[in-house]
């Protein structure tokens, strides 16, 4: 190759590179997301990741987030804390100090979110928790923590009220709960809600994590012939409990399970036995809100989610995507990515999203959302409550 040919080639290469350079690259907002991507909580962690990813992709495809005169792309920095809460806290700190994230999405669940919130508070980085419902998380007087799950009693109160006011002569409930943070908390909440609505709790039993048989517990539970059975746990527990109830011919007037029926998996795995099982969740694809933000109305969010993952979004996935929408709206309101300004915008927020109306209470926990009660009727999930999005009345009997 001659010297002049080389020069030509260099010049050509230089010209190509110039042409390939975009006119203006967006700056980037980095959001730290410590998640349990491996270990026992990994199914939940992966769900949250799907929600965040969908939001980030949708935002970037729409041109990014505009704060004042600057447009930003969003980048989510994931770190796996392997389902170990102590590591979640270390991870949150590392994301702030080493990875220079601007904002945080909280780790999974109430326990880990509470533990990590002290880090966010210390560094004054706004943190949005997508899956923390316990009031204890928010009652620490922190300024930088916001959560998109309402307290547990907002799930159990409407259920107990609907059952008590049904005119179906339901006066007793048997509660059967997985001995685990959230399932036990929600069961204890139901104990209160039932009492408040004049329904007697005739038994309250717990089962251990990893229980592979509920036959004897169910046999014992039926001795007191409860009108209503309220069972809590995760999807594998509830599938097994439902099938064993059917095996033993247990047919109460009403059966409520939390948090399994929110998933399509439950209907597929229990078939006809899923009929007339009621439940509650913070969100359900059947709700219809005409939302602001990148997703627009609920149905558009569901469509986008189904297109990307070939699956129906559940409440945890929706809440994760909503955490992104909320953060984005706050940044746009604040007109800057300066943490304290964004924090103030979050505190003052009052908007409608695909997830529902969003307004945070004094403690940072959402107080505007009415979690839907729903029931599986003829193989499809129907919303029973709240009135605005109601699709059917609660049915009683028919638990076979």
């Amino acid at each position: 190759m001659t010297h002049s040919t080389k020069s030509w080639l260099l010049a050509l290469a230089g010209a190509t590179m110039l042409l390939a350079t975009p006119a203006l690259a967006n700056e980037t907002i980095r959001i730290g997301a410590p998640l349990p991507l491996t270990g026992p909580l990994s199914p939940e962690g992966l769900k949250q990741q799907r929600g965040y990813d969908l939001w980030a992709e949708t935002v970037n495809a729409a041109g990014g987030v505009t704060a004042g005169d600057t447009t930003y792309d969003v980048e989510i920095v994931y770190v796996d804390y392997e389902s170990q809460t102590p590591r979640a806290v270390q991870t949150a700190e590392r994301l702030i100090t080493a990875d220079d994230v601007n904002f945080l999405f909280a780790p999974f669940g109430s326990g880990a979110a509470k533990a990590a919130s002290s880090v966010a508070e210390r560094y004054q980085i706004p943190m949005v928790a997508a899956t923390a419902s316990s009031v204890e998380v928010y009652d620490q007087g922190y300024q930088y923590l916001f959560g998109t799950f309402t307290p547990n009693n907002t799930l159990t109160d409407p259920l107990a009220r609907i059952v008590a006011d049904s005119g179906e002569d339901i006066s007793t409930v048997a509660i059967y709960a997985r001995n685990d943070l959230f399932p036990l908390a929600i069961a204890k909440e139901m104990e209160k809600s039932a009492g408040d609505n004049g329904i007697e709790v005739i038994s309250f039993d717990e089962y251990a994590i990893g229980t592979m048989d509920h036959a004897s517990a169910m046999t014992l539970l039926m001795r007191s012939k409860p009108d209503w059975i309220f069972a809590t746990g995760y999807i594998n527990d509830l599938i097994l409990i439902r099938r064993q109830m059917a095996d033993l011919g247990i047919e109460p007037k009403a059966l409520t399970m939390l948090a399994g029926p929110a998933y399509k998996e439950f209907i597929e795995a229990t078939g006809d036995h899923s009929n007339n099982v009621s439940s509650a969740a913070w969100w359900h694809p059947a709700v219809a809100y005409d939302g602001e933000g990148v997703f627009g109305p609920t149905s558009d969010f569901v469509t986008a989610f189904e297109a990307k993952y070939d699956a129906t979004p559940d409440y945890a996935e929706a809440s994760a995507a909503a955490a992104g929408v909320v953060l984005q709206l706050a940044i746009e309101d604040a007109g800057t990515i300066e943490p304290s300004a964004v924090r103030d915008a979050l505190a003052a927020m009052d908007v409608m999203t695909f997830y529902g109306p969003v307004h945070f209470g004094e403690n940072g926990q959402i107080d505007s959302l009415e979690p839907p009660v729903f029931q599986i009727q003829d193989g499809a999930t129907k919303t029973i409550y709240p009135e605005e999005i109601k699709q059917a009345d609660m049915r009683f009997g028919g638990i076979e």
Partner: protein
Amino acid sequence: MLYAQILLNGLVLGGLYACISVGFSLVWGVLNVINVLHGSFVVLGSYIAYFAYVHLGIHPFVSVVIAGALLFALGYVVQLGLINRVVGAPVLTTLVLTFGLDLLLNNGMLLAFSADYRSVQLANPLGSKVIAGLVFPLDRLVAMLLAGVLTGLLYLLLVRSKIGHAIVAVRMDREAAALMGVDVKTIYAITFGIGALMAGAAGSLLSLVFPISPLASSEYLSIAFIVCVLGGLGSIAGAIVGGLALGLIQSFGALFIGPEHGLTIAFVLLILLLIFKPTGIMGRRGYE
């Protein structure tokens, strides 16, 4: 009547536990290998039954044969190619190896099938039958009976066939068996294959009973562990007795102490047994 129902629940559950554990016990007893892969083998058997039913309409009671055959082949290859290299090493070495293989297999299943729980929904389930006030869950009972038949066949294989004699001989004295012309490595591979076959068959039967997910493998493994230690290592009778004992302990534990303590009671009994009768209910003292 309540006691009778609890007894029945315990026996049915115990039968399922025994069928989960037989293969694990055989491998531990003959090869002195604690096979951490066992739980994932059971889950893989369940998936084979699930996909055979969903895509080909084959009843899980029939796909027992398919799952068993496929898992036998997998077990044979794993033992011949990998575990045989370290089979003479201390038990911890094989434990680490099968633990690593289990991570591979389990995460492979997570990638392939996701963590979602699935369940075989039969078009015509057997349901349950009430006889004299007792509820008999038929799907479980048939699964248990089939497991019993399989276990019986395995027992016959061990006591009647040439291969069975070789397996027993290797279990009793590896060096002497080798001197008598037994090809120890092949016998090991066959034994591990049979262990995997029993796991796959159990998984296939259990696909009607338990929700299917790779996450369930650790539960199956811990059941197999407890059952083997309860019943005694390396004997089929031990696995059956241990399984039934565990099922009954859990059922009656739920009755007398409460459902949440079923597993706790099982472990307390296990510790007591290890203190006072370390060989288990049926077993002889295993390998040191």
